[in-house]
């Protein structure tokens, strides 16, 4: 309580000037007042613009992968806050109480520089916090390598980052798209990522976190949309001149709509030829495009020609590749 009083005392005597101020002259004080006000105004603006929660797409996931990552984010924020907030409080308290000014009655012990108990406490607490967060991190990391739901047959979408566009190939449907992808809602999607250009990163924030697309590598990323909708996707790793324009759209639709969409593309869109791919892979921007077919083994060729023969990709793709192609064959049978 005594401490609290002394806090007030400081506030009163110094006209609420930030406490680490020694001898502020008048103009400076005024200036700081305005600075504070404008800072608050700016903060207000920031909050207002942030009011639209839907803008914070990372905090507003639409699928189980993004949700798990958000859970981890929240856990980590809470664990960090457990340390940060008290420490900030202690900091403010100490700075106020032990200021060097005449008449300060607070104890002064210039030789006190050691305390085993205190040391144990502040080595111990962070260790405990890190241990807890470590466990959650490990759990989530392992979870994300598996399909988000077990009982639904996943589909495979192959992703190739080019300069400066995204190509999606559907091995089950044998169709290809550029700068947009459609996926069925509620179905786990195994995106298999590679690049035929400098490495990029494939990121659809509302479905889940990103993964690099790299030449010569084929790496799996599980994502899933729970509801139908349109999600923003972008390249996250710098690739040069046109990088800022590498956005794409991921549209999640019902399974029936998805099948219909694929059938429509099969029927109405042009084919992607070898020559066409060569043209497509040249540096430049592109609109959204659809192709009814693509050269056989295009994706594997892309991976292999960039050094894919030197790596073992199965560990990255998991064993789901064969299963999903089986499932898609069944789907085709139904038609």
């Amino acid at each position: 309580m005594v401490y609290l009083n002394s806090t007030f005392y400081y506030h009163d005597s110094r006209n609420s000037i930030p406490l680490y101020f020694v001898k502020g002259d008048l103009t400076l004080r005024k200036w700081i007042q305005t600075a504070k006000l404008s800072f608050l105004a700016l903060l207000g603006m920031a909050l207002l613009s942030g009011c639209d929660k839907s803008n914070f797409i990372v905090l507003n996931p639409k699928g189980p992968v993004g949700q798990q990552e958000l859970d981890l984010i929240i856990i980590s924020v809470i664990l960090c806050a457990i340390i940060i907030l008290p420490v900030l409080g202690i900091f403010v308290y100490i700075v106020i109480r032990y200021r060097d000014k005449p008449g300060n009655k607070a104890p002064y012990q210039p030789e006190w520089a050691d305390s085993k108990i205190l040391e144990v406490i502040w080595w111990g607490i962070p260790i405990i916090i890190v241990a807890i967060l470590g466990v959650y991190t490990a759990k989530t990391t392992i979870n994300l390598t598996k399909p988000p739901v077990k009982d639904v047959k996943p589909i495979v979408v192959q992703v190739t980052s080019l300069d400066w566009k995204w190509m999606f190939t559907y091995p089950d449907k044998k169709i290809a798209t550029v700068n947009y992808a459609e996926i069925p809602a509620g179905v786990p999607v195994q995106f298999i990522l590679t690049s035929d250009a400098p490495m990029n990163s494939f990121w659809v924030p509302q479905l889940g976190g990103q993964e690099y697309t790299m030449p010569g590598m084929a790496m799996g990323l599980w994502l899933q949309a729970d509801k139908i909708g349109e999600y923003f996707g972008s390249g996250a790793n710098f690739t040069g001149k046109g990088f800022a324009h590498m956005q794409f759209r991921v549209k999640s639709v019902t399974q029936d709509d998805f099948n219909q969409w694929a059938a429509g593309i099969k029927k109405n869109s042009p084919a992607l030829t070898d020559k066409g791919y060569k043209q497509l892979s040249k540096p430049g921007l592109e609109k959204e495009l659809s192709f009814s077919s693509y050269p056989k083994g295009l994706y594997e060729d892309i991976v292999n020609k960039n050094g894919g023969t030197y790596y073992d990709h199965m560990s990255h793709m998991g064993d789901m590749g064969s299963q999903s192609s089986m499932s898609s064959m069944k789907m085709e049978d139904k038609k």
Partner: protein
Amino acid sequence: MQNSHFFVTGDPMIYGADVSIALVSVAIIFYLTYFKKWGWLWREWITTVDHKKIGIMYLISALLMLFRGGVDAILMRIQLAVPNSHFLASEHYNEIFTTHGTIMILFMAMPFMFALFNIVVPLQIGARDVAYPFLNSVSFWLFFLGAMLFNISFVVGGSPNAGWLSYPPLSENDFSPGPGQNFWIWGIQISGIGSLMTGINFVVTILKMRTPTMRLRDMPLFSWSVLSSSIAILGVFPILTVTLVMLTIDRLLGGHFFTMTAGGNPMMWVNLIWMWGHPEVYIVVLPAFGVYSEVVATFSRKRIFGYSSMVFSMIAISVVSYYTWVHHFFTMGAGANVNIVFAICTMIIAIPTGVKVFNWLFTMYRGRIRITQPMLWVMAFVPCFLVGGATGVMLAAAPADYQYHNSYFLIAHFHQVLIGGVVFGYIAGMYYWFPKIFGFKLNERLGKWGFWLWQIGFYVCFMPQYALGFMGMTRRIYTYNDSMGWDMGWAPLNYISTIGAFLMGIGFIFQVWQILYSIKHGERDVTGDIWDGRTLEWSIPSPAPAYNFAILPVVKGRDAWWYQKEEMQKGNVHKEAVKYEPIHMPNNTGIPFIMSVFWFIAGFGFTFEWMWMGIAGLIGVALTLFARSFQYNTDHYIPVEEIEKTEKARKNYGSVHRTAN
């Protein structure tokens, strides 16, 4: 490709810069010639081997580079302030963020750090110089000419534009032809060799040059931080050197270390560069921690709390920092197990760092806190670094990082730890030791303007960027809302962030003004102990004489000077007639500068792929090395009479010693 035109053209801003660079150069040359200063420049500065002067040159270079990097930052923020901006073209923006990052880390933070190493360490450990004064001069000139080589890319040849760590294959010939990327390689390579030598120099200085009575366990914490940082330099700068050599081999000789074709492996670059890059971050932050320890103890008038714990935590940080590099690319698909191990190692490094914060707080606890300029920056550091550290732990959780990676959340985080941790620390160090090297204090009032503009500017600039990260904005995009019809609502926060950047810029201008103003009007330090300090550097006059200590000081424990002052106050010190002895000092030499010029020539030649010039430069380097090896007359003695004369001129030596209450 750009070989057709040697000079960079096509942008009015570049023409403007060219003109101003030319004018400034002409002005400097005119000034030096008119006032007949060339000889002075050569004798007093270029050929100097005095660690204090080298430190001053590092400091000036660092501030110049802070200006250049800051201008880059402002240009980027102007471009991003509004959507669909056409202020900068894509390539130009890419060049600017590349040079901003490279300059701020390698040509601003590193020399600023070396400035503090040079200015403080020998004084603090009671030494008359560093272990290798010649090598020290080589280090500086390698850094300086490396930095100059990097900076002239602005005018000739074109700037690099593949990012500050230049991931291949983007940085390979196929995607980044021309001299720009080579400038990046050679600028860093040359200055990096200098950094490595500085590392060796300070490890040996601290281990071998301490005044004989100073035990390691009584050594001031700043010197400890320099030791741990230097050891980390030894561990990782060779990796950087080799990694850059590999990229050179790829680009110059058609090699395939990191190419997409012929079996090259770009992922190897990402690993190697971060094996250097991550410890590098700790290399620059550890000395800042050292500064905080000194400043907090001095201005709390109290011993540093938990000294052993502080030393242990610094060593722990420099060791664990070797095992965290993968956290820069959790998203490269290394596999769950690898990610978990590196995630946890990264979190572990937060523990000793957190312990240090507690120790600083409890140094202030039951102390008497004087809020001076250095202390102000330390107080700004504590909350800033706490939050930055917390977001670091958030980033360390690998799956969460999948969402933060390469987004503005990451940008906000590392600026918060690098500005809040490193820059604040170096600025605190600059204010703290400025009177020691120059003999006068920096003006408080202007300093406070600078301080508050920096503080407010910092939060206004970077807090919105955390939010932008959550809104899905990725780094290194030169424009938004411009294609595919996406409006993600990024505009207002970007606008605010730009305002913050300007505030920091104005803050920097105030600091420059403060320095210029104080040269004439700053409070003079007549005692040598203007802050009532605790460590040996405050026991000698400001500025320190060339030989630092006329008599090597006797140290009886930690905070040697503080307790010596107490003894003096009690009258326990008997004034004995001191008997001086001649002091052995190294001679000035022009070889380091000439050798570095040859390095510059070599780097320039290889940058433009003019092999004849590159090889000629390297031969020049070898010849200067030989010339040095044949130099035997490399030192001299300062005679006793001269020492006596200098020492007599000291006034009020150690008279100030106030205790609280």
